[in-house]
């Protein structure tokens, strides 16, 4: 494999068969694009949007997931990555096919409302999240572009990457932007740059700091109503409450399956781990919830998880169960593959995936908006970075208990000031509870700050000195 000492596992005949299915799923989803739009159209897009080249290399991520594992876990990981890649293909396809109805939305503003209005959502941060998983250095020229326009180096590299894409003229122009005050001040402020660069009308949702209780739900459901009215004024979208109900029901269904997977993952040894869990959530609960694809993903994943559970666990030798706090290490997704192989570390849950997941009551437009308000306010990261520190710690310690975690790896992204400012409390609270904590010093999207090799060294030192683990 390309990264350090990750071992390539010799495939069995069954492995080869499942690899073929995964690769087939990936290739067919990407091959659809020139067929649908025509080769010249795609060639033009390929030239105008260099990020397409990185997305088209998604097979490297797939290789990482399948070639390092064997059996049903390999099959499930391959299914997960290829399904998510195909989902991205669908979003790109729509982005090019429907510019007149495309609305750019911020990553923590779930797009259900846009689907309900017949609009086409495109998550502005999607490229900054997904592309570095495929090619670690992806974000760097965009970060440089944002910095050369005067954005300070200490701002989170994810919004900087997103701003850079817009500043370099590589963000397709939407009809409108729907954003919010989440997940951090840097992310919130980056939309003033996007608005200026793209020159499109922008609506900003305001999520209260204290979002518990009916008062906050009422306020935020009101914000959503105002957003719908604004979108009806500025885009061709019209709210169709029946369609909206359908979107919410699909979302609920996918959620149900995901929760069942979680229940199984809580068992020892865990029947599923790694990318299949966090990528699936990122894609089908954050980037494109409310689509049949999400139901299909989690239903299939549940079947596969059950199958693995019946046979034992996902990892050949699960020795440590790990919670990852903060988003996954985008520039180094191989970290957990390496940790699986070297020390038997199973990554079971992370901050993006773990939130309250309230189901949406689809009885009436009001209940749907209230349900969506809860989804947004209690959504991934938002509750941890925007809200009081109690959320950050109570969620983490609750999940540690629920999934019987042996340790916490905190992806200490230097640009995430919200979480950096909790590290002191974090260490003390973990010490009180006797939970080993590794704070990885790195940058989410920039390999020049801390290289993957250095990240691995930090993890290695922690495993050997604190966890007293010996390599498998």
């Amino acid at each position: 494999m390309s990264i350090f000492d990750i071992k390539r596992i010799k495939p069995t005949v069954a492995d080869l068969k499942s690899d073929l299915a995964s690769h087939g799923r990936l290739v067919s989803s990407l091959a659809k694009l020139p067929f649908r739009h025509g080769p010249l159209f795609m060639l033009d897009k390929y030239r105008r949007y260099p990020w397409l080249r990185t997305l088209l290399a998604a097979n490297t991520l797939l290789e990482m997931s399948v070639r390092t594992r064997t059996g049903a876990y390999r099959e499930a990981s391959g299914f997960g990555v290829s399904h998510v890649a195909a989902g991205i293909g669908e979003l790109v396809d729509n982005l090019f096919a429907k510019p007149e109805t495309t609305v750019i939305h911020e990553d923590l503003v779930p797009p259900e409302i846009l689907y309900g209005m017949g609009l086409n959502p495109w998550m502005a941060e999607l490229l900054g999240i997904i592309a570095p998983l495929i090619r670690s250095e992806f974000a760097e020229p965009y970060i440089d572009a944002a910095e050369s326009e005067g954005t300070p180096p200490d701002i989170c590299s994810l919004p900087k990457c997103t701003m850079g894409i817009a500043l370099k003229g590589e963000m397709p122009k939407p009809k409108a932007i729907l954003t919010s005050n989440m997940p951090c001040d840097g992310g919130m402020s980056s939309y003033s740059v996007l608005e200026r660069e793209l020159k499109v009308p922008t609506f900003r949702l305001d999520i209260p700091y204290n979002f518990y209780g009916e008062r906050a739900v009422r306020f935020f459901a009101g914000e959503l109503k105002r957003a719908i009215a604004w979108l009806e004024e500025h885009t061709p979208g019209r709210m169709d409450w029946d369609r909206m109900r359908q979107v919410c029901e699909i979302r609920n269904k996918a959620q149900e399956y995901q929760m069942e997977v979680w229940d199984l993952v809580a068992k020892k040894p865990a029947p599923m781990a790694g990318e299949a869990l966090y990528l699936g959530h990122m894609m089908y609960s954050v980037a494109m919830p409310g689509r049949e694809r999400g139901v299909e993903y989690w239903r299939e994943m549940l079947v596969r998880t059950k199958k693995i559970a019946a046979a034992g666990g996902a990892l050949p030798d699960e020795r440590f169960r790990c919670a990852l706090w903060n988003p996954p290490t985008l520039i180094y997704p191989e970290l957990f593959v390496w940790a699986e192989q070297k020390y038997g570390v199973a990554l079971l849950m992370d901050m993006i995936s773990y939130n309250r997941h309230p189901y949406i009551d689809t009885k009436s437009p009001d209940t749907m908006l209230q349900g969506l308000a809860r989804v947004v306010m209690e959504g991934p990261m938002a509750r941890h970075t925007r809200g009081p520190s109690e959320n950050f710690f109570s969620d983490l310690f609750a999940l540690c208990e629920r999934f019987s975690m042996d340790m916490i790896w905190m992806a200490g992204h230097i640009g995430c000031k919200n979480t950096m400012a909790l590290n002191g409390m974090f260490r003390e609270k973990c010490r009180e509870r006797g939970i080993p904590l590794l704070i990885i010093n790195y940058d989410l999207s920039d390999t020049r700050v801390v290289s993957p090799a250095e990240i691995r060294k930090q993890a290695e030192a922690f495993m050997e000195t604190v966890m007293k683990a010996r390599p498998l």
Partner: protein
Amino acid sequence: MKQPAGIPTFFKNLVEEPLNAMVEKAQDSGQRAIGYTCSYVPRPLLDVEGIFGVRLRAPGVSGTPMADTYLSNVICSLTRSIMELALEGAYSNLGGWVFASSCDHMRRLYDNLDYLEPLDFVHILDVPHKRGEAATAWMKEELEMLAEKLAEHFGVDTGRGALAISIKEHNRLLAILRGLDRLRRRDAPPLSGTQYQMLMMAATSSPRNLVIEPLESLYKELENSSDGIDDYRARLLLAGSNCDDPGYIRVIESTGGLVVGDRTCTGSIPALKPVSEEGDPLEVLASHSLDNISCPRMMEEFGARAQEILEAVKLTRADGVVLETMKFCDTWGVEASPLVSVLREQGIPVLRLEREYAMSSEGQLQTRVQAFLESMGR
């Protein structure tokens, strides 16, 4: 350019300590001091009979080693400096503190102080990021909750009547400060930007009733003074984030650039806008707070913010703008660049400075300002 004489050392002494002698005096007389930050906490709500508000500052902080352990060293140094002094016990005489959820850094300051140095009374206001009817209604409820909590904890009257009196008295203080600010628009102002900032900070760091009279007499004295500063090279508008250290402005002015207006979190614009004395005091305070769009936390107001600076340039007849932002401040960090572009598009010379809370690298700052003045042909 020399700083003129004429500002009594009384005011200088008030800004040199985190909790000054006036705070002690008021506490000795039985009043309780409430530390607050930032500008989104409406001070009239804290200035009722029996309690008074003191804006949290960290004068004299020389390093933040303890605060860095908790807040890390990538958080704005204003919050780290307040935390450092809190951990040293500098605010332990306060009866409580009130924060605003204005930015990530302030929220985490609140979290950490509540964890490490909890006072008997701790509150954080949930301040919306935009204006409008719904946001004002939310903010009003927030203030109502704080008012009730203050009344219950300190046994003070925070009812509508008491607040109306407080607003009136607050407006009296603002009128004096506005008068002093107006003197800076003269061709030869009788006070410098450094001195004005000192008076502003003295006013926010002291019990209101103990500074109104001294400020009023000073105003009368300066109003009639014919002396003024006439040896400056350029008139400058200071814009940007928190700048509660008059020493920072002193360094700028040492190069010959006279600061004639300050559109900062701690400056005269928009802090001196009077609070309406009509209507429900809580509603008035709520909309007054949200109408303060000077901080980029107010996410829909980029255009209005730029306009506010352009108007301030006109009002103060400034030759250029010094845009100072606190290092690690995300909102200013991202917004400063487009703001600079807007100002330059209007033909206004702008110097962008990133700074730490505690004064450092004086020489470097002087050189930057000197070069800026030269670039303006001054």
